[in-house]
C-alpha cells in the first residue's frame, strides 16, 4: 500500500506551496488548492481503509502493514525511524481526520470569507492535517512525539490566527506552554522507554520489553501525563477553553475532533503494554478521567459563551474515552488481552469515532450561529430556530447524539463505555452515568438557550440573523448523516482490543438506565430553559450564588495557574536569577577589574622615578636581609 505516502505528502506540499506563495495567489485559489489536496487525501484514506479492512484476516486479526520505515536519525544503539504503520486504529483515525478536515476545509470557505490572511489559514490547516495524519500512522513512539510537537505548533499558530487580538495571543501562548510542559514528561517517558526496552518501536513482542518491564509503569505514566496535557485532562485542561479564541472551524477540527484525542490515541497505541505490564497504573487513568469528566460537566452547566460550553463538553467526553481505556482488565483465561474484559478499548475507540463527528458538527453549527449573530454569548441568541432551520435541525440531532438518545451514534458508543465501567466497578459506573446525565442537561440548556427562549430583539433589530451559505451548511448535513448512521457500524469487527472480531451486545439494563437518565435530564432542561422566561434558573442562581460563581469561574483554577507562573516562576525564580547573574556573578568579574585598577593605582607610586625613594627602599631591603641572616 505504497500510495499511503501521499496521504502525508499531499498536505505537506499544499502547506509549503500556500505558505511560500502566501498573498501572491488569490484567496479562492488558496482555498481550492488546500481543499483539493485534502479531498485527494480523503479519497486515499477511504481507499486505504477499504483495502485494509477487506484484506484477509490472519489468525483472526487484521495484519499490521508497514509500507515504509526508514531510519531518520541513528541514536547510538537505538534509531529514530520514520514510516507508516497501518493497523485498525490508525486506519480508523485516517478516516476520522480526513473526513473532519475535509468538512472544515469546505466550511471555512464560507466562514473565513473576506478574512485577512485567508491563504495563511489554509496553509496552517494543511500543516495541521499533515502532522495529525503523521501522528496516527507513526511506526514508533519517537515519530509520534515528533508529529505530536508539530500538531502543537499548528494548534498554536491557528489559535493565534487573529494575532492582533490580545486574548488570542494569550490563549495561543497558554495552549503551547501548558502542552509543552506536559510534553516534557512525555519525552522523559520516551527516554526511559527507549533506554530500558531497547526500542522505540511498537512491536511489543520483542524481548526488550520483558527486560525493561520493571520500568514500564513509570514510563507509561509519564507518557500519560503528556497525553493528559494534549487531551486536556484535569488539571492540565486549562488551555482548551481559552483555545476557543481561534476561528471556530479550527476549534471543530483541532480542539474537538482530532488533536485533543491524541492522548487517548497514545494510550490505545500502547495499550498492550499497559495491560500487560502496568495494569495497576491504569487506575490512575481511570480516576483522572472520572475527575475530569465530572469537573468539566459541572463547569459546562453554567458557562454563557457557547464555544466554552462546547469546549468543556469536549473535555468531559474525552475523559469518557480515557476512563473507558482505564477500565480495561487483563483477560482471565491466560490470554493477556481478552475482548470481553477489555471491552473499554473498543468502546473508547468507538466513542472517539462518533464523538469526532458529532462534536465537529456541534462546533460547525456553533460557527454558523456566531456567523449569524456576531457574538459568542448566549445572551445575544435565543429564538434562532426560525431564522436558521438547517443549523437548528442538525444541531438538535448532534445534541441528541451527545446526550445518548437512540438511534443516534452517541448512544451506542456511550452505552458501551458505561457497560465497561459497570463491569469494572459500580462506583465508576454510576459516577459516569451521572456525568452522562449532566451532559444531556447542559447540552439542552445550550440548545434551548440558542434556538428557543427570548429573542434578543434589540440586537436583531439592526441585523437580522440569517441561515449560513451552502459551503457552511453542506458540511453540517454530511456530518449529520454520519451521526445518524455511525451507531449501526459493527465497530467491533474492525477495531477491538485483541484484534479479533467482536460483536457489540447492548446490555439492556445499562442501556435502559442511561436512556431514562438522559430523557429525565432533557426534560429537566426543557422545564428550566425552554420557556421565554426562566424563573427556575433564576431562583437556582439566587439560591446558590457562590456555587454558581465558582463554577462559572471554573473553580478559579486559571487564577491558581496564573499565580504559580507569574508570581512564583517569574518573581521568585527568573528575577532573582537574573539579578544574581548581573550583580553577583558579573559583579565578581567587575570587582576583579576594579581591584586591579585600584591596586595599580596604589603601587604606581613605587615607580615614581625619584632616586632618593629608590635608595631608601634599597637600603631598607638590605637591612632586612642582613637582619634575617643574623638571626
Amino acid at each position, binding site marked *: 500500500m505504497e500510495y499511503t505516502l501521499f496521504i502525508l505528502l499531499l498536505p505537506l506540499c499544499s502547506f509549503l506551496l500556500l505558505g511560500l506563495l502566501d498573498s501572491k495567489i488569490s484567496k479562492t485559489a488558496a482555498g481550492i488548492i488546500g481543499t483539493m489536496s485534502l479531498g485527494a487525501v480523503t479519497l486515499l484514506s477511504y481507499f486505504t481503509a477499504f483495502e485494509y479492512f477487506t484484506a484477509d484476516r490472519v489468525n483472526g486479526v487484521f495484519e499490521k502493514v508497514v509500507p515504509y520505515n526508514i531510519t531518520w536519525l541513528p541514536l547510538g544503539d537505538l534509531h529514530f525511524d520514520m514510516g507508516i504503520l497501518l493497523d485498525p486504529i490508525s486506519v480508523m483515525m485516517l478516516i476520522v481526520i480526513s473526513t473532519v478536515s475535509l468538512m472544515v476545509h469546505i466550511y471555512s470557505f464560507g466562514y473565513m470569507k473576506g478574512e485577512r490572511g485567508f491563504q495563511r489559514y489554509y496553509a496552517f490547516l494543511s500543516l495541521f492535517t499533515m502532522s495529525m495524519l503523521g501522528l496516527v500512522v507513526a511506526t514508533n513512539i519517537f515519530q509520534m512525539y515528533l508529529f505530536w510537537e508539530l500538531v502543537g505548533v499548528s494548534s498554536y499558530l491557528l489559535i493565534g490566527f487573529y494575532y492582533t487580538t490580545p486574548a488570542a495571543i494569550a490563549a495561543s501562548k497558554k495552549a503551547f506552554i501548558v502542552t509543552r510542559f506536559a510534553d516534557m514528561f512525555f519525552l522523559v517517558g520516551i527516554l526511559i522507554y527507549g533506554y530500558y526496552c531497547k526500542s522505540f518501536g511498537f512491536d511489543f513482542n520483542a524481548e526488550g520489553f520483558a527486560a525493561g518491564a520493571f520500568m514500564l509503569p513509570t514510563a507509561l505514566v509519564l507518557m500519560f501525563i503528556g497525553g493528559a496535557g494534549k487531551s486536556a485532562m484535569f488539571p492540565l485542561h486549562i488551555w482548551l477553553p481559552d483555545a476557543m479564541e481561534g476561528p471556530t472551524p479550527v476549534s471543530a477540527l483541532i480542539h474537538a475532533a482530532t488533536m485533543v484525542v491524541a492522548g487517548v490515541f497514545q494510550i490505545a497505541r500502547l495499550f498492550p503494554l499497559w495491560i500487560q505490564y502496568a495494569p495497576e497504573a491504569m487506575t490512575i487513568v481511570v480516576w483522572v478521567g472520572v475527575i475530569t469528566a465530572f469537573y468539566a460537566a459541572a463547569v459546562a452547566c453554567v458557562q454563557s459563551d457557547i464555544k466554552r460550553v462546547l469546549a468543556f463538553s469536549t473535555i468531559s467526553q474525552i475523559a469518557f474515552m480515557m476512563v473507558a481505556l482505564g477500565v480495561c482488565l487483563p483477560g482471565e483465561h491466560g490470554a493477556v488481552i481478552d475482548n470481553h474484559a477489555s471491552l473499554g478499548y473498543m468502546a473508547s475507540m468507538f466513542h472517539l469515532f462518533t464523538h469526532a463527528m458529532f462534536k465537529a458538527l456541534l462546533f460547525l453549527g456553533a460557527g454558523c450561529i456566531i456567523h449569524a449573530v456576531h457574538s459568542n454569548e448566549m445572551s445575544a441568541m435565543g429564538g434562532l430556530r426560525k431564522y436558521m432551520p438547517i443549523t437548528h435541525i442538525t444541531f438538535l440531532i448532534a445534541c441528541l447524539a451527545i446526550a445518548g438518545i437512540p438511534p443516534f451514534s452517541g448512544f451506542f458508543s456511550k452505552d458501551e463505555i458505561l457497560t465497561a465501567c459497570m463491569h469494572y466497578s459500580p462506583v465508576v459506573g454510576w459516577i459516569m452515568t451521572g456525568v452522562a446525565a449532566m451532559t444531556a442537561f447542559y447540552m439542552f440548556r445550550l440548545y434551548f438557550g440558542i434556538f428557543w427562549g427570548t429573542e434578543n430583539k434589540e440586537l436583531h433589530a439592526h441585523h437580522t440573523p440569517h441561515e449560513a451559505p451552502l459551503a457552511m451548511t453542506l458540511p453540517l448535513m454530511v456530518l449529520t448523516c454520519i451521526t445518524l448512521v455511525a451507531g449501526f457500524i459493527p465497530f467491533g469487527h474492525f477495531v477491538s482490543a485483541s484484534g479479533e472480531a467482536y460483536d457489540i451486545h447492548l446490555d439492556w439494563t445499562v442501556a435502559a438506565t442511561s436512556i431514562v437518565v438522559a430523557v429525565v435530564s432533557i426534560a429537566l432542561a426543557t422545564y428550566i430553559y425552554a420557556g421565554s422566561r426562566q424563573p427556575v434558573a433564576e431562583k437556582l442562581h439566587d439560591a446558590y450564588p457562590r456555587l454558581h460563581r465558582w463554577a462559572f469561574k471554573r473553580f478559579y483554577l486559571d487564577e491558581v495557574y496564573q499565580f504559580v507562573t507569574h508570581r512564583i516562576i517569574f518573581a521568585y525564580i527568573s528575577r532573582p536569577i537574573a539579578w544574581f547573574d548581573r550583580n553577583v*556573578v558579573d559583579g565578581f568579574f567587575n570587582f576583579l577589574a576594579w581591584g586591579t585598577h585600584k591596586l595599580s593605582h596604589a603601587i604606581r607610586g613605587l615607580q615614581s622615578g625619584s632616586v632618593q625613594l629608590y635608595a631608601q627602599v634599597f637600603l631598607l631591603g638590605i637591612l632586612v636581609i642582613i637582619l634575617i641572616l643574623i638571626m
Partner: protein
Amino acid sequence: MENILYLSTFVFIPLVMLLGLWLAKNVNQVRGVMVAGSTALLALAIHLTARFLGDRAAGETAEMLYTGAVSWFEPLNICYSVGVDGISVAMILLSAIIVFTGTFASWQLKPLTKEYFLWFTLLSMGVFGFFISIDMFAMFMFYEIALIPMYLLIGVWGSGKKEYSAMKLTLMLMGGSAFLMCGIFGIYFDAGASTMNILDIAKHGVALDNQYLWFPMTFVGFGVLGALFPFHTWSPDGHASAPTAVSMLHAGVLMKLGGYGCFRIAMYLMPQAAHELGWIFLILTGISVVYGAFSACVQTDLKYINAYSSVSHCGLVLFAILMMNETACTGAVLQMLSHGLMTALFFALIGFIYGRTHTRDIRELSGLMRIMPFLSVCYVIAGLANLGLPGLSGFVAEMTIFVGSFENTGTFYTTLTIIACTSIVVTAVYILRLVGKILYGTCTNEHHLHLTDATWDERFSVICLIACVAGLGIAPLWVSNLIGDGVAPIINQLDKFIVLNPFM
C-alpha cells in the same frame, strides 16, 4: 604537501581577501572582494565536505584525513600541522555559511566599511585556521587571532556601552587564554616534550597525576568561550554591544571554538581526568542550561534574551560532551551546528529590526508583524527552531543529546538529564513571550508605522540561514553520520579509561 595546501586554502583565501580589501578604493570594491571571497570559502567548504564524504565512503579509515605538517619552530617542536575529521569538516562548513551570510547581513554597514571588513576577515581567518589545525600551538595561535579583532569590532562599530563590553569580553576571554596556555604547555611537557601534535600526544598519553591539573585548566580555558557558568557574563554584554555580523560570527562560530576545544584537547588528551573530574563540570553545565533559560525569561533587551538563550544552548553542548558517549557527543556537535545557524539567524534578524526601529527594548516594540511581515515571519521561524520544533535543526540536536545522556546509567546522570529537559519548557516560555510582545498585537509606536520590510541583501542572508536550519532539521542523517565518524575515535579514547565518578 598537497594536503597542506588544500586545507591551508581556508587560511589563504582570507589572506588574499585582506590584501584585496586593503587595495579596494570604494565601498563597491570592498563588497566585491567580500562576496567573491566568502563565496569561494563556501564553495571550498562544500567541496571539502563532498570530498571527505566521498573518501570515507571509499574506505579511508584514518582518524584524520588530509594530514600534513610543516615544521615551524624547531626548538619547541611547533609545527603547522593540518588535518580534518568529521567534526572539523562540519565546523568548517558552519563557519563558511556564517561568514557568507554575515557578509550580506552587514551589506549596508557604515562608517569605515573597509576597516570593518578587514577585521571581520581577519576574524574569520582565525576561525578557519583553528578548525584545520591539529597542532596545539597552531590552534592556540589561531584562537588568539580570532579573539583580538573582536575588541575593535565591538569597540568601534558597536552600540550601547560598547567600550565597556569590548573590554570585558576581551579581558575575560584573555583570562581564559591564560589558563589555556598553561594547560597546553603542561600537556606538552608531560607528554615528553617532543611534539605538539594532538594525535601523537593522544598515543603518548599524559601522566595521570598531572591530568588533574591540566584538565581543569584547558577545560575552563575553552569553557569561558563556550559560556560555561560562571564564566559566561561576557556573553550578554558582548553580544548586546556587537554589530550584527559580529554577533552572528561570534555566537554562531566563535562560541563553538570553546566546545570544540574542550572536546578535542581537554577530553581527548586527558581521558582519565575527564572521567574523574567531569562531574564537576557536568553540574556547572547543568546549571548553565537551566540558569540561562530562566534568566532569558525576564530580560527586556532582544539581544540579552538571545545571549542568555545562547548560554543555555551552549551549556547543552558542553553538557552533552561531558556525557562521554557517542550519541551524546554526536548530539553535542549537532547542537553546535544547529545553535550556530539558529543564533546567527536570530542576531541577523535582531540587527535588521534594530536598524529600523533603533530600539531593542521589547517594551517599546509591538505589532511588527503587520509592518515588516517578512522579518517577522522569519523571526517566528527562528523562535520555533530555538524551542525545538521538529523539522528544524534544534529538535534533532536536542533529541540526540537527551537520548545520549540517558544512555548513562546512574541517578546522577538521569537527574541531570531530566533537569536539562526542563529547559525545553522554559525556552518555550521566553520565546513565545517575546514573539507575542513584539510581533503580534497592534503597533502602538507611531514612529514604527512607516518602517519598511527587509531589503534584498537582508532577505538573501536570512533565507540562506533558514534553508540551512530546515535542511539540517529535515534530513539529519548524513550530517549525523559525518559527525559520528569524527566522534567515534575520541569516544574510544575515553572508553579506555572508564573510572567511576563519586556520584555513581
